[in-house]
């Protein structure tokens, strides 16, 4: 059985669990939504909100990422399933790719909805020429987030009661994604007069980040979850 097939099985299993339990739909999405509303309370100015809308979207994505990662590994830890996978000799790299893939898909859905929320709540506008950049940004930023989240989620999963470790490890590591994705979306939306073409170098940064942490995570995940 090839690595990819096992990874796809793991991803499908994770998505089936999410579909069945509806935790993302019932809890993570409302959480992300309320975060967006609270940002508005804190900033309290239509002009400012429109200016910072891209950053707020990605900030809400990062917070939701933490919740999603915790959930993805709570499912494994509840009855020792991750241990069972390891004991059965299932390749850690496949587990990493599978869980990362499922996380990435959930993040993509979340990003689309949060962007829609920004349009509704913050008055952000999506010009036609920015759509390609917007979609590309999302597609390049998400694997990086999923790679970091899955990696450190797996590390923290082995230690019940140390869940506070996850944000401490994840947030500094994904800072480049927050910076890059925010600037790229600003360019796509034309926020504060940014040109669409300015966004592409940031997409380059996001791609390098995703590749670096994808490779690093694939190699590091096994040793980190191994006993």
């Amino acid at each position, binding site marked *: *059985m090839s690595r990819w097939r096992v990874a796809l099985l793991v991803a499908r299993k994770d998505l*089936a*669990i999410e579909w069945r339990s509806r935790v993302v739909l019932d809890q993570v999405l409302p959480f992300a939504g309320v975060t967006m509303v609270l940002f508005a309370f804190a900033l309290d100015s239509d002009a400012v909100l429109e200016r910072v809308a891209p950053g707020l979207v990605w900030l809400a994505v990062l917070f939701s990422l933490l919740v999603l990662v915790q959930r993805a590994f709570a*499912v494994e830890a*509840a*009855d*020792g399933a991750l241990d069972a996978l390891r004991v059965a000799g299932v390749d850690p790299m496949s587990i990493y790719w599978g869980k990362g893939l499922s996380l990435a898909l959930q993040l993509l859905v979340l990003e689309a909805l949060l962007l829609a929320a920004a349009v509704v709540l913050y008055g952000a506008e999506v010009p036609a020429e920015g759509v390609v950049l917007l979609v590309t940004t999302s597609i390049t930023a998400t694997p990086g987030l999923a790679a970091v989240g899955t990696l450190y989620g797996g590390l923290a999963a082995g230690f019940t009661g140390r869940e506070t470790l996850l944000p401490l490890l994840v947030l500094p590591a994904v800072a480049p994604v927050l910076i890059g994705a925010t600037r790229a979306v600003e360019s796509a939306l034309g926020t504060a007069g940014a040109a669409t073409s300015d966004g592409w170098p940031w997409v380059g940064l996001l791609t390098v980040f995703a590749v670096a942490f994808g490779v690093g995570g694939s190699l590091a995940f096994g040793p980190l979850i191994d006993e």
Partner: protein
Amino acid sequence: MDAAPDPEHEHPARPVVELTDAVALLGPYPALAGATIRVDPGEIVLLRGPNGAGKTTLLRVCAGLVPLSRGEGRVLGHDLRTERAAVRPRVGLLGHSNGLYGDLTVRENVRFWGALVGATGDEIDAALERMAVGGRLAEVPARKLSAGQRRRTALACLVARRAQLWLLDEPHAGLDAAGRDQLDDTLRAAVAAGATIVVASHELERAGSLATRTVDVVAGQVRSVA
């Protein structure tokens, strides 16, 4: 003993487990201190002994999880010193947790494990039936099951992923009388279908009637019982 005589047991086949003077460490502590044991195909071997005698470590060594520091060992034909990774997929180790996903149904759990080795739908159905979690029970989410049903679902996962050697650590713990009876029936069914089982248990009476052979584990060593 009411276990059906296994035809394979009559001919001395290649042993499933063969440890010779095995030493394994938990940290610096020799949990196994020169254990020698041989398990033939189709056996149900009961390990008995006090807490801390090394029963669990013996199971974990056989599962390829704990390396041998000294001595020799082969499981299912693989050398434990050099081929532990090859041992793991063919061996099923069941400890206190069942490794089930509570939100998935019994069938989905079993299918996931089966799919990892490319098991067909028929194989999944057979696994469910053999461990008595088929029919309507198969469509119930795992978190709604009783302790016995969860244990049997975990065993069905072992069937589905074609584990040939089952290493069970206190499988009767936490089950009621009916659950224990059903567990024993399913274990016999598994052996009839070709599995070999090593059980570590405190429930001596219970496990003793199930086992085809009993050995004592004392201070990290194995002593045969006549």
